[in-house]
């Protein structure tokens, strides 16, 4: 029990520190105790944060949302289609296809980023939304999960009866299978959302234009400038807090979906 409490403090400490620091004026950061509140300046910190460089922080936040929400939504749909086909259709080369995709789980995504950059610069999509968005929709782990979930959640009899009623395969998928798979699709969506939201190396390699940055890259750049512009420190801290709190709340609310995903990841 004591050990668990100690660990809980360890996990909470940086976030608690961030909350406290975000409420302080820049001048108090170094001069007051980091774990105790001083002058409450959260709202002026927030307005500085959002007005800095013509409101670029809001732009970064929106970019992160676009990359992560749209990318995960498209990614979940195509993973679901593919995983469902792998689970429910028998065809030649099925196992081979699945092994190739599973091999993709082991490919380090950072090792992909540099060659992708070269390919994208040859085709001219470097430094555009697509350069980050397109690679993000591919999630081999999502297909793996979708296959497991489809085998478990979609009974063969229901598909047969839908077919007997004359529904085409797509109709069957979109009106019957997808409903049965809904909880697992949320799981896949969450995993992919977090993966894209947390991604840093790919946007860093692909983007030079600040207006296309996601939050992670933007805060990284600001953090690098604090040595020359110490006043940025408070905005980096407040920005970090603004970027993590909504996500933490979101996934605490959706906890049970994580557990299903992690459990099936472990069943291997």
């Amino acid at each position, binding site marked *: 029990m004591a050990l*668990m409490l100690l*660990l*809980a403090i360890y*996990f*909470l400490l*940086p*976030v608690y*520190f961030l909350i406290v620091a975000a409420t302080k004026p820049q001048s108090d950061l*170094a001069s007051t105790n*980091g774990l105790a509140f001083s002058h409450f300046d959260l709202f002026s910190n927030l307005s500085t944060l959002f007005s800095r460089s013509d409101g670029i922080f809001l732009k970064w936040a929106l970019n992160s949302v676009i990359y992560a929400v749209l990318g995960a939504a498209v990614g979940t749909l*195509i993973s679901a*289609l*593919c995983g469902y*086909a*792998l689970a429910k*259709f028998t*065809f030649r080369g099925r196992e081979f*296809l699945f092994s*190739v995709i599973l091999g993709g789980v*082991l*490919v*380090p995504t*950072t*090792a992909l980023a*540099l*060659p*992708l*950059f*070269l*390919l994208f610069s040859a085709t001219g999509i470097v430094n555009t939304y697509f350069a980050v968005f397109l*690679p993000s929709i*591919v999630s*081999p782990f999502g*297909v793996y999960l979708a296959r497991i979930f489809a085998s478990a959640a979609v009974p063969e009899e229901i598909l047969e009866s839908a*077919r*007997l*009623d*004359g529904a085409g*395969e797509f109709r069957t998928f979109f009106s019957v299978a997808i409903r049965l798979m809904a909880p697992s699709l949320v799981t896949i969506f969450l995993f992919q959302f*977090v993966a894209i939201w*947390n991604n*840093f*190396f790919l946007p860093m390699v692909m983007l030079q234009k600040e207006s296309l940055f996601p*939050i992670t*890259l933007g805060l*990284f750049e600001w*953090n*690098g400038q604090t040595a020359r512009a110490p006043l940025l420190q408070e905005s980096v801290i407040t920005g970090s807090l603004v*970027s*993590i709190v909504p996500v933490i709340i979101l*996934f*605490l609310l959706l*906890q049970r979906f*994580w*557990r299903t995903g*992690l*459990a099936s*990841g*472990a069943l*291997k």
Partner: protein
Amino acid sequence: MTDIAPRATRVVTSTGGRRRHRGGGPRAGTIVAFVTPFFLPFVLFYLVPVGYAIWQSFLVVRRTGGQYGTSYTTFGGFEQYTKVFQNDEFWSSIGRIGLFGVVQVPVMLFVALVMALLLDTPLLKLKAFFRITAFMPYAVPGVIAAIMWSYLYSPQISPLVDGLKSVGLHPDFLGPGAVLWSAANVSTWLWTGYNMLIMFSALQSIPQELYEAAKLDGASNWTIAWQIKVPIIAPSIILTTVFSIIGTLQLYAEPAVLRQISSNISSTYTPNMLAYAVASGNNYQQAAAISVVIAVITFVLSFGFMRLTSKKAGL
């Protein structure tokens, strides 16, 4: 659903009307339509870059007529790989990451395992609270986590440094000997709860009767945990180890952030940082060779580990 007769005729028409596979599945065109939306981007953004990196890694840029001549790209065999293996910076980055992995991965997984086992005992209170706090860091991007911790390491701002000073210690989290472990701490903070939850989920799928039987045989909680629970969830432990090995070799964000405040992290601190630095110097072929070597090491280590452990476990 109407009556039986029309359905029966439909069966006949549907099997007779179109060509079907042996298993009674849909037509090939339908299967292609299901698989392509994923498979096409997968090929374009996974397989093609891998192939392209391999191809690039066999090329060299040469110049005609001395330093100011025009450059041309040609096939160089294993020249780029020879250069990688002769590069001292490459070996020191590998050495660093090796040291990091050998210490950080076992420590993190051991803590995760102990937490999962404790959460699985009926004795512990506040289970949901502990589970949630441990998993919370997973929602924090690596860059942000590193920024948060870098403030906790920074001598000017950190309450930790202040606290330790008041008891007579003068830690230098960013010093040459410590900074690697400061980065390791960020990774541990980020991933312990995630690994713990994988192990905990596996523990929860063990049927309770097993424990009752062991208790009747006089096994203590301790014995049950280490002799029964741990071996059963071995596949999950192997899985988390493989994920951790992959993660360690990909390390980039945490040291890159700490580099912003510590002069003890070079631009070639980890293999990925080296690859990026080389690519920024426009030597793409060399960067491709480094990326391929990192990927091969990742594959060899993760597969090697899986083979080794599954043999030992007799699976």
